[in-house]
């Protein structure tokens, strides 16, 4: 086994390429996180509705996105959707749409579980005070439900950030994509993929630790 000569200097010389990728990783992660959380709330509300016309389509949407691989979703939005709609879909748009929908589907289930976890008495008390559904949701149910579901949501954002690397397969220029380009260009896959893995590790590990701390803190204040 010949000893391999590590050369991390070459990675440092090209750090700006990886930094550019990292920026796009944050961009896709943040945009699909925020949009997904909003759509997820709507979907979660629809799932809880007693009207079949609302709850059924939401359930179908959630099941489709939870039971297909994220990579297949991304590729579907990139290769299939443009044909269906007869318009151009950029790598960013395809990645953004699929990650948003995926995130919305998983978030809907978290919202649903959170809202279900609030005792019936709270609903009744709100109604007795003459609050309508939206007011009650906004002032009584959601503030409590959100607190209970924060750890699940921080986990979700870690998962989502992990998933953004899939966007490299449709040539969106995030961290993984830049890493692949660099490694092909410099013939230094070991150093480059190790660096890329390390960057992801730092981000995701920080997220995991943060999520754990938050969980402890919130359970103490309950």
């Amino acid at each position, binding site marked *: *086994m*010949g000893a*391999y000569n590590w050369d991390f200097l070459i990675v440092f010389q090209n750090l700006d390429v990886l930094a550019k990728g990292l920026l796009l990783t944050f961009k896709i992660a943040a945009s699909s996180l925020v949009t997904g959380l909003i759509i997820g709330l709507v979907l979660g509300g629809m799932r809880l509705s007693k009207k079949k016309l609302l709850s059924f389509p939401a359930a179908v949407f959630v*099941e*489709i996105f*939870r*039971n*297909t*691989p*994220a*990579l*297949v*979703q991304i*590729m*579907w939005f990139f*290769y*299939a959707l443009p*044909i*269906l709609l*007869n318009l151009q879909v950029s790598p960013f748009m395809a990645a953004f749409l699929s990650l948003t929908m995926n995130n919305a589907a998983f978030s809907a289930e978290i919202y649903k579980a959170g809202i279900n976890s609030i005792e019936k008495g709270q609903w009744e008390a709100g109604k007795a005070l003459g609050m309508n559904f939206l007011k009650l949701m906004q002032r009584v149910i959601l503030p409590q439900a959100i607190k209970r579901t924060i750890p699940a949501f921080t986990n979700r954002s870690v998962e989502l950030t*992990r*998933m*953004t*690397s*899939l966007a*490299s*397969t449709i040539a969106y220029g995030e961290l*993984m994509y830049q*890493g*692949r380009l660099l*490694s092909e260009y410099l013939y230094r*896959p*070991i150093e480059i*993929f*190790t660096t*890329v*893995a390390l960057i*992801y*590790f730092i981000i*995701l*590990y920080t997220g*995991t630790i943060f999520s754990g701390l938050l969980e402890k803190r919130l359970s103490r204040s309950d």
Partner: protein
Amino acid sequence: MDYKWDFLIVLKNIDPLISGLYGTLLLSSVSLILGLITGLILALLRLSKFKPVNVFALYFIEIFRCTPPLVQLYWIFYALPILINISLGPFESAIIALSLGSGAYFAEIFRGGIVSIARGQWEAGKSLGMSYFTLMLRIILPQAIKRMLPAFVNRAVELVKTTPLVAVIGYSDLLYQTVLLSQRSYRSLEYFTFAALIYFVILSIGTTLSQYFENKFNN
């Protein structure tokens, strides 16, 4: 604007898709078995009172849980062979990446399950003169595994969801064949929708199974 769907073309080219599906199922089952073995070993190492072993297992698990599976796959396919001077084909790389990746998650499930068994069971086994391994095999694991079943099935579903990544290193799974066919025929819409449907059927079965176990053990 009116697109004419033609699913007949999918049926005409069903052979490569079936061989791709076979690749997906083969890869899933082999990595599931190896992942479970890896997970059990890692869990036992994590539970060890010998600090260096414990810390090694902890970091091994964290590294795999806190990096994207795609990065793991590229690292094992492109970097590992140079580093230790061996050659790894797409299948071997995929097996290694998916087994280690799922093993890291299985380890935490095993650990949780083992820890959840009451102390009295350990003491009873020890007082009967059982060795650590006999005790683990006959008393602890059979009880723990029942409790862990829903989590295991969930994880297996996650594993199958991760398998399409191997298409990017050229392993012939369902997604790989789908990409090839759709490039050849400009019928991406039909091919990708079909592939999504197949994955949906497989994964829904898994999700339903997991819910069934969960309800069964909750009662």
